[in-house]
C-alpha cells in the first residue's frame, strides 16, 4: 500500500484505511471475545482491549504500508 492515497484530489495518509479496517476488525473481535467471556478473566478489560487494538493496528500498519 502506498504511503499516501489520493481521494478525489485530496491526499490522505495510507494508514487511514488501515486504521478504519482495524477498527472494524476490532469490533468483530470484541463481539467474539465478549461472547466467549474472555473479558471476565482479564484484569483490566479496557486496557486489554486497547492493547489488542494497538497490536492489530501496529502489525497491520507495519506489514501493509511501506
Amino acid at each position, binding site marked *: 500500500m502506498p504511503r499516501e492515497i489520493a481521494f478525489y484530489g485530496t491526499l490522505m495518509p495510507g494508514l487511514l484505511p488501515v486504521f478504519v479496517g482495524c477498527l472494524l476488525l476490532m469490533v468483530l473481535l470484541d*463481539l467474539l*471475545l*465478549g461472547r466467549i467471556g474472555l473479558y471476565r478473566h482479564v484484569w483490566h478489560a479496557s486496557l486489554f482491549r486497547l492493547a489488542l487494538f494497538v497490536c492489530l493496528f501496529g502489525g497491520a500498519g507495519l506489514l501493509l504500508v511501506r
Partner: protein
Amino acid sequence: MAAVPAAVPTADRPWLRELLAGEAHAWLFVGKSVLAIYLGAWLAMWLQLEQPSTTMITVAIVMHPHSGMVLAKSFYRTIGTLVGSLVGLALMSAFPQQRELFLLSLSLWVALCAGGALRYRNFMAYGFVLAGYTAAIVALPAIANPYGVFDSAVMRVSEVLLGIGVSALVSELVLPERLRPILRREARAHFAKFLAFLRGSTAGRIPRQAMQDAQLASVRAAVQLEDLRSSVIFEDPEVRLRSRRMRLLNQRYMAAATSFQSLHHLINRLQRGGRDAAATALIALYRPLATALTPPAGHAGDDDLHALPPQLDACVRALPGRAAALRQDLSDAAACREFDTGAALLARLVDELAAFVATEHALRTGRPVKGGVEKVHFSRSSDLAGVGVAVLRTFLTMATLSVFWLASGWTFGANAMLLAAIFSGLMAASPNPVGSVLHTLVGYAAGMLGAAITVFALMPGGEGYTMLVASTLPLLLIGPYLATRDTLPGVGAGYTLGFVYILALKNPMVYAPEHFFNDAIAQLAGLGLSGAAFMLLPGLAGTGWQRRRQLRRLRALVWLAATEPLDGLLWRFESRGRDLLLQAVANTRPRSAESRTLLAWSLAVQETGRALLELRQDVAGGELPAIARDACEAAVRAVAALYRKPDLSAWEAADRAVDAAIALAPGRARNHLHQLRSALRDDESPLLAAVHAMPAQEPAHAS
C-alpha cells in the same frame, strides 16, 4: 493526581469516612479531567495542530465522572463533528462571496440542529448540538478567507477527534468508574420493589392514590433503566451482548405492570359497584400469586432467583383449575361473566410475570432466554411544537448576532456566534434553560477571570510544557472540582469551558491583552444573548398549553393502539405511553392536581389501549365468525374515536358498539370486551368526567 489521605483513623467517625469517600471520588474526577486536558493539549502541540485549545475545549465538554457517559457522548460527538464539518464545508462552497446568505443558512442549520437535540433527548441530542456547532467552528473562522476552509475543516476535525479520543482513553483506562454496577443495582432494586408491591397487594383493594404513585414509580423506573442501558452499552462489551435481553426485560416489565393495573382497576370497580361475590372470588384466585412470588425460606437472598420461575410456572398451570373451582361457587350469570373477565386478565398477568421473572433470571445467570429474543425498541414520543419553538429561538438568536456582526463590522462577532451556537443547542433540552444559562454564565465569567490571572500574572516568563502546566493547573482545578458539586449545576462546567476557551492555548503563546478582553466580551455577549433568547421566547415546558397537548397525545395513544399494524405495536404503545407521561409529569409539581390528572389519564389510556390491542389480536387470530369480527372492529373504532375526542355522543356510541359486540363475540374476545365496557363505565376514571364536562353538540376540533 491528588493523594487521598487514607491513613487517617476514621473507624469511629462515620461522617468523616463518608466525607473522605466523597472527596476521593471528586478528586479522582478532577485528576482525570486535568490529565486528559493536558494530555490532549500536549498531543495537539506535538502533532502541530493549529489550535490546541479546541482539543482542550472538547475534553472539557466531554469529561464526565462515569466512563460509560463519556463513551456515549464521544460516540455521538464524533458523528456530530463529522456531519457538522461536512455541512460547514458545503455552506462555504455554496456561498463563498455572499456573507448574508451564508450566515442565514448557517443560522438555519444551527437552529435545525437545536431542534433535533430537543426531538431526540438523551445523548443523541448531543450529536445534534455538535453537528450545528462544528459547522460553525469550521466555517466561521474561514469566512474572510474562503480558500482556507478546507484546511480549517481538517484542522478542526483533527483537533476535536483528538480530544474525544484522549478523553475516552483516559476515562476508560485510568481508574474507570463504571455505570454498570449502578445499572445492575437500579435494575435489581426496581425488580425487588415491583415484586414486593405485587406481594403486598393481594388483599385486593388499593386506593387510587397508591396506584398512581406506583404507576409513577414504575414509569420512572422503565425510562431510567432504558437511559442507563443506552449509555452502559458503550463501556462494556458484555452488556452490549445482553442489551437486547435487557430491552426485552424492560418491555415485559411494562406489559406486566399494565396488566396488573388493569386487574386492580377491575377488582376495585367490582367492589365499588357492590359486586362483592365476583370481587372476592377474584381476590381468592389472585392470592396464590403472592406465595409464588416469595422465594422459599432459606433462600431469602435477594439475588437468588432460581426458585421463582418454576413456582410461577406451577402457578400458571394451576390457574385454570382453581378458576373453575371458584366459578362454581358463584350464583348468578352476571357474576360468572365478571369473574371470567377478571380471570382472563389474571391469566395474562401471571403469564407476563412468568416471562418477566424468567428473563430477569436469565440475565442474572447469563443463560439464553427461552423462546429466543425478539427485537424490541423503546419508542419515544416528542412534541413537535416544542421542537419548533427551539428552532425558531435558535434561528432568531443566530440571525440577530449575524445582522449585528455584519452591520457593525465587529471583529469578534464570530466568537459571539460560536458561543451562542453551543449554548442555544445544549440548553434547549434543559427543564429550566434560563437558570442553567445564568449558572453557566456565572461560571464562565469566573473561568475567564481565572484565565486572565493565569495568562497575565502566572504564565509570562514560564518556559516549556512543564511550566505551562504548573502555571495553569492551580486555577484550572477549580472547574472540574465545582462540576462534582451537585448544588451548583452548570457552574463548574461553565468555569472549565470559559477557562480553556479564553486561554486559547497556542504554540507559541502570544501576550495580547486587547485580544483577550475583546474575545472575552464577545463570548460573554454570545452566551448572554442565548440566555436572553430563552427569556424572550421561553420553551413550552410546563405551560398549560403544552400540558393540554401532551394530554391529547396521551389519549391519541389509544388511537395508535386501535389503528396501527399489530406487528410490534404492543412495545411501541407501552414505551411511548411511559415516555410521554414522564415528560409531562416532569413539568408538574408532585401530587398537584395537574400531575394527578395526567396520571389518572395515563392509567385509563394504558388499560383501554391494552384491552383494544388484545381484542385486535383476537380478531386477527381469525377464529371469530365474520359478524362478530365486524362488531369487534366497530367497537375498537368507536372506543378509539372516543379517546380522540371525548364527548357524550362519542361515549354513547362507544358504549353501544361495545355492547353490540359483547352480544355477538364468543370466548376470549368477549372477556376483553367486558373489560373494555367496565373501563368505559369506570366512575373514578377521568374519561367520564371529561365526557360529562363536554356537551355532545360541541363542534368538532381538528386534532
